[in-house]
């Protein structure tokens, strides 16, 4: 309650004229304004239209409409949803009236709106999470098993050309390394590994001319090695181990699953991040995080598959461990190698698992020395 200090015998009177809109009819009425000092519940503004009854607004309820263009004067309303308005164009009268009103801030939203908003935000976030992390993956897993091999092959081809374009530094897509002797050595190694696996389609293994220490599988039996990975390997068994791991993904049809999931979740993320500037960058990063989240279990399964495959082909599973150990010495655990291994289980766990897997019954080198040298020169 505001305290009014009366100077002299009488209170300073407030009198003005304003356009009154009663919120009932489309009628502008020139009304006389005055202040009732002794209204019940505190001082109030009396609005007297030329015809009809006068209206009384408690001064504590009077609000000024915000963000109004131009002048002169102000537009007044009451707190709450009453559509009645007063347009007071006399700047001087507006200032005098404003000085008498304890709270002129804009009409505030009704009670409980913030709480309702909080509940809705939580509900919306929860629903979208369920859609992205439960519904879309569930559906993608089901559909991936139904996808015919030709369809999956087409999906893989499309993805591979996208990746080659995205990683390229120039206009031409990233080159495929095609040295004949090198490819022959690679094919020999792939044939030995694949003999022990039951695959839905033939493997197509290629080397891309890029320095990244990485390898990945795509839908339809594509396995891609980067040249950087071949350079980092010290013996052919290490490359064979990585290859066996990727064949594990192919056997489980993980890439098709991930591609379908991405198709579902990327649209949803685009929607959420909306028209706000620079959304696409955030979009890619977020999508990456989601994938890292849901491929961890698949990675462990692919490791287990690789151990079996290597043992059957007469190669040591711990080569996978050796490769990882060197990667860790060079790049540290779960940091540095953001590009691909961020989405993989912790290296330490994988090294331990590879060493626990035991050894092949009879060892046979993955490649002869001549084949290994040819393979290392596949990009030259």
């Amino acid at each position, binding site marked *: 309650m505001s305290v009014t200090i009366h100077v002299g015998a009488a209170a300073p009177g407030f009198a003005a004229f304003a*356009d009154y*809109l*009663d*919120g*009932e*009819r*489309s*009628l*502008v009425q020139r009304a006389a304004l005055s202040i009732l000092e002794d209204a019940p519940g505190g001082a109030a503004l009396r609005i007297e239209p030329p015809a009809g009854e006068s209206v009384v607004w408690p001064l504590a309820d009077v609000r000024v*409409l*915000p*963000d*109004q*263009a*131009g*002048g002169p004067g102000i*537009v007044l309303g009451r707190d709450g949803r009453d*559509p*009645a*308005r007063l*347009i007071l164009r006399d700047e001087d009268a507006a200032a005098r009236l404003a000085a008498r009103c304890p709270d002129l801030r804009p009409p505030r*939203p009704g009670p409980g709106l*913030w709480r*309702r*908003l909080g509940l*809705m*935000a939580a*509900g*919306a976030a929860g*629903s*979208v999470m369920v*859609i*992205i992390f439960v*519904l*879309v993956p569930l*559906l*993608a897993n089901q*559909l991936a098993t*139904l*996808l015919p091999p*030709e*369809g*999956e092959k*087409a*999906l893989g081809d*499309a993805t591979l050309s996208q990746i080659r374009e995205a990683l390229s530094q120039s206009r031409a897509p990233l080159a495929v390394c095609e040295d004949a002797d090198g490819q022959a050595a690679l094919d020999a190694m792939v044939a030995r590994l694949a003999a022990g696996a039951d695959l839905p389609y033939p493997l197509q293994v290629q080397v891309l001319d890029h320095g990244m220490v990485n390898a990945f599988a795509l839908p339809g039996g594509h396995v891609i090695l980067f040249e950087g990975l071949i350079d980092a390997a010290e013996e052919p068994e290490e490359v064979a181990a990585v290859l066996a791991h990727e064949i594990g993904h192919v056997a489980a049809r993980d890439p098709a699953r991930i591609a*379908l*999931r991405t*198709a*579902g*979740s990327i*649209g*949803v993320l685009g*929607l*959420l991040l*909306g*028209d*706000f*500037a*620079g959304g696409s960058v955030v979009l890619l990063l977020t999508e990456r995080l989601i994938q890292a989240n849901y491929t961890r279990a698949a990675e462990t399964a692919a490791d287990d598959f690789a151990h079996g495959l290597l043992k059957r082909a007469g190669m040591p599973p711990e080569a996978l461990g050796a490769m990882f150990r060197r990667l860790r010495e060079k790049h540290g655990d779960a940091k540095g190698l953001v590009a691909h291994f961020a989405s993989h289980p912790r290296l330490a766990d994988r090294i331990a698992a590879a060493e626990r897997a035991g050894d092949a019954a009879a060892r046979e080198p993955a490649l002869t020395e001549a084949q290994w040298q040819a393979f290392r020169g596949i990009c030259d």
Partner: protein
Amino acid sequence: MPLRPLEIEFAGTRGPLMRLALATSVKTVLTLGIYRFWAKTRLRRWYWSAVRPGGVPLEYAGEPLEKLMGFLIAVVFLAFYIGVVNLVLVFFSFSLLADNGTAYALSFVGLVPFWFYARYRARRYLLARTRWRGLRFGQEPGAWAYAWRALGHWAVTLLSLGLLLPRQTFWLEKFRTDRTWYGAARLEQGGRWQMLWPAMRHLLMGGALTALGLAATLVAKMAWLIVVPGAVWALAGLVYYRVHSFRILAAHKRLAGGIGFNAQPRAGRVLRIYILGNLLIAILLGVLITAVTVLAALAFAALGGLAGPEFWAALGGGGILTGVTTAAGVVFYFVIFILWGVLGHAFVTMPVLAHYAETLEIENPHRLAEVTQRPRDAFAEAEGFAEALDVGAAI
């Protein structure tokens, strides 16, 4: 005895609008976009209050929180639709057709009805939150009926190579207008679609010249010299069509059976605002970008000369420098992005709105006094679908 028509004043000026647009867009960027619901509300309050039929400002009574909540509702619906539908479409596209272009095309087509739905809902929300002389405007529900009609009309227009555009414009405008209310008074669209033919004049001539030029390029390469002016003419013709169809449609609208409208916007004026406004913005931003680039280069040169290599080595070499440069680049990107929006309000949106307002008159305004209030339309989802789909109302 007919009284003088009621004229519409536009009371806005550039300075306050630019201050408001600047403050709200800075906050939008700083809050990662959440403030956009407040920004939109505040700008609409300003624009609405600048438009004053008979000296009484329009009022925009929408609330930012209801927009945010509507957006949340729409996002959940659309997330389900886009997530599941996209997935199923990609699956079928690959398993049946072995290609993904079809999937994206189909999933885009699948969103088109939603887009029209969202536009109708957004208009309903906008009208429900607009008041004049204390009375609410309103629009009846009917968004799906509108969406199917819009799809049908678009199909006909495209099949007729655009010749039946007036038919589409008229019937869709009639659908919206006949469901629009001011207080308890209904608005009606009269007339017939053929009355919009004269507005097509420049669009048809420009289009014909373009088509002719394109056909001629098969014979002689030089015919490109006809295609380019033809396309420019057609583009200007599109603005002419929008302005003049607005005039004709307004002249055939009636409120409460007797209150009419006289709209006289000029296509030349609107076109001039678009061209000169955007040109001015491009020049201002171009000068700013050049000046900042030159200053940055000079600053680097000066720093390098003053401090010498030891200074940079002590700072930790290139790492810090790269970091600072990147951060400055990001900030500068957002500054340009914000200024572009602010200048767009001041030199394009506001002048166009002012021109449309100042050239509109309300006939037989004495009949307005009979109009009474309508109940409030609660409308939980506000314009959420439009916001989520980025349907992009002008303001």
